[in-house]
């Protein structure tokens, strides 16, 4: 038996971004264990890994094949999502350094865990097989469970990690059971080979139940109602830099795999499956925005906002069209930039032991830190979906896809709930600009500020010239 027939150069090229990042994570681990106080070196090794991996991902963009017997997709969609995850990781890495130094909790393991979870995300975004998706979800989630409990002497961080771990493990069980049923009814876990058996396989109720269970697993990972209970506590308890990474990278990864797994079953426009996902979307939008209204803690408010945004993006899945999937992808880019920026501002202003996080603490920020207040207002406008920011274009495409697929009621609900969300997003703007108060703040870190400014520029550019991304998306799907 010659092993070479199962393994070719194309496989190596296809998985090069993942392999490169994996190699750098091992180097970082080695440096971390052999050199004392090597946080800075580990950080730069991780940054180098992300940059090299980015280069490979760009290099693969033009390719269009599969690797490892259809287990992994190469080029196009996979490369786009890999680049998205890597850029988010880069932002998150640079946001973390000043935050961890301020909190006096600076360990090299943090950065290694961040890039290990990125490897999981990249596997999810380039999965051609349900098993690859499962593997990616596990690699990402296990790193997240540890990162959520990174402040191990703080009670809230421990609570966050334990809650995330127990519920996450439970949700993964559903996902695996669903995969087992799909395997039982089609004889394969490969997405391409499952698609080849349509539409006959779709008639089997067991097959539908399998997709239903997979849907539960995914709904948990994207934080859709009614599987959202973990989100507020985990987002609030985890270190702010981790929350920034989890809410952007984690969500983008979950949706990338969601699209890969569900694009074929959803294109059958099965009324039952469409209705289930539409209801998930509607419930997420309603409940996420509803509970967002009564929050006083900014991290918690953004957690509920994250639930609501999962609802908006689920509209794209429910529509079952390419327009919807493009809409989700664009939305993920804009949501990623916006949330990284918002959490970046919060991380900069946070004080020890999770202080300075409530609306009242932001009163008068426009006077003490005018630039930060302006940036945070921009992020809030983008989250609400007000032009000319990127959030508006994303919402537009998602609602358009709903109308196209005769789900107009979902689009109407989306617009109405966005209107509700204006109250709690703009409330922070009101506090910053129209309330007196606020003590003088210590000078802020330059790296964090640069990162936040960069994401601010990103959402404005994408809001004014969305074709930058949309043209790429159209060639991809």
């Amino acid at each position, binding site marked *: *038996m*010659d*092993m*070479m027939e199962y393994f070719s150069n194309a496989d190596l090229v296809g998985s090069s971004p993942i392999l490169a990042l994996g190699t750098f994570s*091992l180097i970082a*681990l*080695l440096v*971390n*264990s*052999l050199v004392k106080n090597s946080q800075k070196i580990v950080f730069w090794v991780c940054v180098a890994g992300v940059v090299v991996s980015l280069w490979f991902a760009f290099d693969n963009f033009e390719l269009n094949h599969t690797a490892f017997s259809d287990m992994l997709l190469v080029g196009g969609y996979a490369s786009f999502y890999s680049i998205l995850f890597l850029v988010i990781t880069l932002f998150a890495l640079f946001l973390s350094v000043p935050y961890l130094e301020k909190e006096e909790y600076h360990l090299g393991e943090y950065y290694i865990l961040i890039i290990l979870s990125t490897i999981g995300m990249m596997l999810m975004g380039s999965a051609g097989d349900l098993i690859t998706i499962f593997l990616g979800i596990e690699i990402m989630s296990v790193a997240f469970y540890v990162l959520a409990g990174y402040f191990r002497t703080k009670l809230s961080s421990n609570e966050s990690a334990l809650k995330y771990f127990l519920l996450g493990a439970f949700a993964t069980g559903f996902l695996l059971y669903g995969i087992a049923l799909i395997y039982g009814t089609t004889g394969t876990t490969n997405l391409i080979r499952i698609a080849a058996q349509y539409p006959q396989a779709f008639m089997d109720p067991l097959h539908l139940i399998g997709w239903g269970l997979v849907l539960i697993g995914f709904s948990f990972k994207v934080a859709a109602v009614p599987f959202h209970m973990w989100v507020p506590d985990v987002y609030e308890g985890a270190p702010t830099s981790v929350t920034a990474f989890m809410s952007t990278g984690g969500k983008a990864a979950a949706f990338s795999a969601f699209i890969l797994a569900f694009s074929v079953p959803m294109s059958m426009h099965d009324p039952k499956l469409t209705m289930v996902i539409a209801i998930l979307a509607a419930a997420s939008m309603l409940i996420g925005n509803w509970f967002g209204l009564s929050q006083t803690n900014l991290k918690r408010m953004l957690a509920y906002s994250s639930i609501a945004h999962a609802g908006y993006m689920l509209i794209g899945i429910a529509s079952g069209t390419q327009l919807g999937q493009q809409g989700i992808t664009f939305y993920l880019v804009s949501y990623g930039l916006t949330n990284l920026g918002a959490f970046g501002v919060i991380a900069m202003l946070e004080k020890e032991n999770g202080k300075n996080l409530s609306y009242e603490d932001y009163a008068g920020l426009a006077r003490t830190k005018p630039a930060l207040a302006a940036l945070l207002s921009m992020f809030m406008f983008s989250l609400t979906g007000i032009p000319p920011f990127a959030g508006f274009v994303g919402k537009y495409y998602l609602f358009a896809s709903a109308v196209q697929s005769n789900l107009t009621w979902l689009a109407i609900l989306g617009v109405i709930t966005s209107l509700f969300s204006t109250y709690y997003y703009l409330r922070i703007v009101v506090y910053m600009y129209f309330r007196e108060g606020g003590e003088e703040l210590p000078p802020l870190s330059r790296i964090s500020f640069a990162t936040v400014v960069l994401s601010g520029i990103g959402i404005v550019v994408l809001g004014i010239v969305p074709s930058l991304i949309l043209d790429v998306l159209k060639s991809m799907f």
Partner: protein
Amino acid sequence: MQAYIPIFLMIGVGLFLGITFLTLQRFLGPHRPNPEKLSTYESGMPPVRTARERFSVKYYMVAVLFILFDIEVIFLYPWAVNFRALGVFGYIEMILFILILLIGYIYILKKGALQWD
């Protein structure tokens, strides 16, 4: 449904055997309980404390690391059996695999995860 008959049969037989043996020994066997007989280890040492105690987290650490390296051996076995068939490719593959685990081992060693105190 046809394909599942052996499984149902297996469940049925399993239930039947389990229930029969448990009920039969109740009627047929002698039943003379005394404190000595009811203790946890009838012929062993008398238990000193309850078993539901808190364990040091160090045991957990050792258990996790044991599982990790145990799995490594599980992967080594089939490779060793097929060593000739897998050839140089398999050899390189296995060296890479062990190298990754070795880095993990260096990490836990340097971080003092194996030190008891």
